[in-house]
C-alpha cells in the first residue's frame, strides 16, 4: 500500500507536470529565431544533376540556406551527414568550434553568451538526451538558468536538436511516469506492470469503500 502510495504520488506529480507544460514550449520551439531564408538562386552554380552525378548514392538531398549561403545537405551511404557548397560544388569541411558557435548564436533567440562548447563524436560518451544518429555533434550551451543547448552536426552544420531544462525535466517525468528508472523508453517493465495491478486493486477497493461510505451517508439522512 505504501509503495503504491508513493508511486501514485510520482504518477500524479509527473502527470501533472506533463499536461501542464505546453508541449511546444517543452520542445523549445521558442528557443530559435525564425531563421527562414529565401534560397538565393543566382549563387547556385552547382546543380542537383552534378551533385547526383558526383554522389550517386546520396540520399535525402536538400538545397537550403546555411548562414546566408546556399548549400546542399545529404546523407552518405555510410549514414552520416554531408554538406556541399552550392556555388563551388566543394565538400564543406567539418564544422570547427568557432563555426559551431556562430551557427548556434545565429539561430538562438535569446542574447545570452555561450557558456561552453564540446564536440561529441563517440556514441558511448554521448549524453542521454541526444540520439546516436545525430553524431558527431557540437554541443553548444548558452549561459542561462534553463541551460539551453543547441546540437550542431559537425558535417552539415545543421542544428539537429536542442534541449533546455523544462525538456530535460519532462524526460525525467516521463521516466517516472512509466517507472523506467534506467533507460527511459521501455513502457512494459515488470515493475510497472506490478504496480499497475496493485494500483488497480487499490483504486478499486478505494471506490468500493467510497460507495459504501456514500450509501451510509444517505442512510443518515433517511432515518
Amino acid at each position, binding site marked *: 500500500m505504501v509503495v503504491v502510495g508513493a508511486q501514485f504520488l510520482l504518477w500524479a506529480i509527473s502527470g501533472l507536470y506533463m*499536461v501542464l507544460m505546453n508541449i511546444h514550449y517543452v*520542445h523549445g520551439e521558442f528557443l530559435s529565431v525564425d531563421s527562414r531564408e529565401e534560397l538565393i538562386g543566382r549563387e547556385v552554380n552547382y546543380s542537383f544533376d552534378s551533385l547526383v552525378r558526383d554522389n*550517386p548514392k546520396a540520399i535525402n538531398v536538400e538545397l537550403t540556406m546555411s548562414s546566408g549561403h546556399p548549400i546542399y545537405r545529404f546523407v552518405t551511404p555510410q549514414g552520416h551527414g554531408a554538406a556541399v557548397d552550392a556555388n563551388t560544388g566543394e565538400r564543406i569541411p567539418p564544422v570547427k568550434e568557432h563555426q559551431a558557435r556562430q551557427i548556434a548564436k545565429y539561430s538562438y533567440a535569446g542574447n545570452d553568451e555561450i557558456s561552453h562548447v564540446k564536440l561529441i563524436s563517440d556514441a558511448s560518451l554521448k549524453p542521454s538526451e541526444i540520439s546516436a544518429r545525430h553524431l558527431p555533434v557540437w554541443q553548444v550551451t548558452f549561459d542561462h538558468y534553463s541551460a539551453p543547448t543547441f546540437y550542431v552536426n559537425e558535417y552539415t552544420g545543421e542544428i539537429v536538436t536542442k534541449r533546455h531544462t523544462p525538456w530535460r525535466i519532462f524526460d525525467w517525468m516521463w521516466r517516472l511516469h512509466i517507472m523506467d528508472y534506467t533507460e527511459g523508453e521501455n*513502457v*512494459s517493465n515488470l515493475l510497472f*506492470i506490478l504496480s*499497475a495491478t496493485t494500483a488497480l486493486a487499490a483504486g478499486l477497493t478505494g471506490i468500493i469503500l467510497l460507495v*459504501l461510505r456514500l450509501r*451510509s451517508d444517505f442512510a443518515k*439522512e433517511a432515518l
Partner: protein
Amino acid sequence: MSLLGFTKSIHKWVSIAVGFQIMIWIGTGGYFALVDHHVAGGNASKTSVNHQGVKTRPLIPWMNLTGQSAESVKLLWILEQPYYQVIHTKPEHRYQKHYVQLFNAYSGEPFVLTEPFVKKIANRSYTGTANVIAVSLVKPPVRELPREENAVWKVSFDDPSHTNVYIDKNYGRVISHIDDDRRLRDLMFRLHFMDYGNSGSFNHWLIVSAAGLTLTLSVTGIVWLIALFKSGLLRVPLAKNRKQLSVRHLASGTTSDLALPKADTILHGLAEAGVFLPSRCGGGGTCGACKFKSSKNLPQTTADQDLLSPEQLNRGYRLACQHFVSGIEQIEIDAPQEVQTYELTTVETKFVTPFIKEIKFTAAGGKRVPYRAGAYMSFIIPGGTNFIRPKDLPQHYERYWQQIPSGTFTHQGGVRHYSLATYDSLDNKLIFNVRWQLHESAAGLGSSYLGALNVGDKVIASGPFSDFFASENEVVRRVLIGAGSGLAPLRAIIWEQVELGSDRHETWLIQGARNEDELAYNEEFETLSEEMGNFFYLPTLSSPSCNWEGKQGYVQQVILGQIKHWLNGEVTEFYLCGPSKMMIEVENILINSGVPSELIFKDDFSSGR
C-alpha cells in the same frame, strides 16, 4: 475539525471527483504496459518502402521551374522517379500545415500524386494479402489522425483488421497504417489523455484539473497513511504470535486470561476469543462504541480523540479497534462476557406510524434474553428478493405510499442493527420498531425484510449489545430527545425508569414528528405522563393538522425554550436518538448552552453499516 480530519474529507471528496478517471488511467496504463507496441502502433502489416532510384537522364536545373521563391528544395524519389520538392514554408512538425510543390525533376512539369501512385505505394508498404477496396483524398480534420492539418491519401484494405494506409500527399510517404490494433491504442491514448474532443493533445484544462486533483488526492492520501502509521494502526503483519491478556469484566466482576494474536486489534482479538465488544462500524474507528479501559497510559489515536471525551481519555478509556493486543497486558471491559445468538419467532407485527412497524418476537425455546434498556440486536438478513411495498399496509396510511412503486428487488443480505423498543422484564417478548427505508428504485434491504415478516416467521439475531443506556449517576433529570424510529431505545429507557419506580428524578421526553400520524406511541406517553408526576411529555409537530393543540415546530425549538429551566444549577443528562441532522443540531444547542459533553448520550443509527 482537526487537520487530519480536514485532510480525510478532502481526500474523500476529491476521490469522488476524479476516482473514475483514475481508474481509467490505471486501466489504460496497464494496457500500455502489457501491449506489444509494434502491433499496437499499427505496424503488424507494415514495411518500409524504399523509393530511391537511379538517375537515367539529366535533371533539369531547379531554377527553370515555375521560378517561384522557396525556402529549400529537396530531391525526392517517389517510386524510383526523381522529383523536386519545392518547400515554401516548412513547419516544425510534419503534421502541421505545410506549403510544398512537386515537379518532375526530368521535365520540370508540376506533379501531383494521383490514385495509381498512391495505390502502388500503399501496396508496397502493406505486407498482407488483402486487396485495396477504396482510395480517397481526405481533407483535415482526419478522424483517424487527429493532429493532421494537411490533406492526406487514405487507402483501405479489405482485411479483417480494417487496415487504412495513410499517405502524405506532398511527400508520397506512408504516414501510418491504422488497423484495429492501432484504433484500440488510439482509443486508449484518448482515454488516458482525457482527449474526449479528439484534439490529439494532452495540454488541455480538463486533464490539467484532473491531474491537479489527483495530486491533491495522492498528497492527502499519503498524509493520512503517515498518520495511520504513526498511530501504530498500520503495520506489516508477521506471524500470528499470541500473547496472554488479562481481561476484567466490569459487569460480572470476573477476570479471565485470554491468549490473543498480538498483531490483532483488541476488538478483533477479543472477538476471536468469543468476547464481543459493541461495534457498529465493524472496527472502522467511526462509531466510538468499542470502548475499553487500560491502566497503562496508552497513546491516543485521532479516532480516540474524536469519539471519546477528554475525561474518558484521562480515565484510560480507548477504542478497542484502534489499539493492538501487543501493546497491552491488562484491560477492563464493560460488555457481556459472551454474545448469544438467538432464533427469534415473529409473534405480532403492525404499523404504528405510516412507515414504522412494531414487530414482536420470542426467543426459541422460551429462552429469556437479558438486556439493558437502550440495547440493540444484530439481525442476520439473508440474501433474497424483497417487496418494495408492504403487503399489510393499513388503509388509512395508503395516502403516504402513493408515490411508491410496487414490485420487488433482489439483494445480497447483510447484518442490520435494531434497538429493543421496550423494557419488558416479565414478558419474554422482544419488541422492535423498524422504519421501512425507501429510495427511488427499491427499499432498504433489512428494514423491508423484517417489515415483511409474518407471524410464525423466524429470524436469527445476536446480542443484545449495550452501549446506550441510562447512567447510574445521581441526577436530577434525564431529558430524552428523539424522532422517528429513534424513539425505540428511548421508549425502553422510559419504561425502565418507570419500572425502577424511582421518583427521585424527572424523566422528560421531547418527541418530534411531522404530523399526528407519525407520532408513534403518543397515547401511551400521554397516559404515562398523566399517571406519573415525574414524567414530562412534550411532543412537537412540524406540520400538524388544524386540530393539534400541542407544540408546533422542531424539537430544537422546544429545547431552546426549556433549556434555561433544565440547567438551573441542577445535573441534567441528555439522551439523543433520531435523524443525524436532528442529533447534530440538538447537540450543538446543548453544547452552546454549556452542557458538558459527558452529560450528552447519543445513539446514532447511521453509524452502523
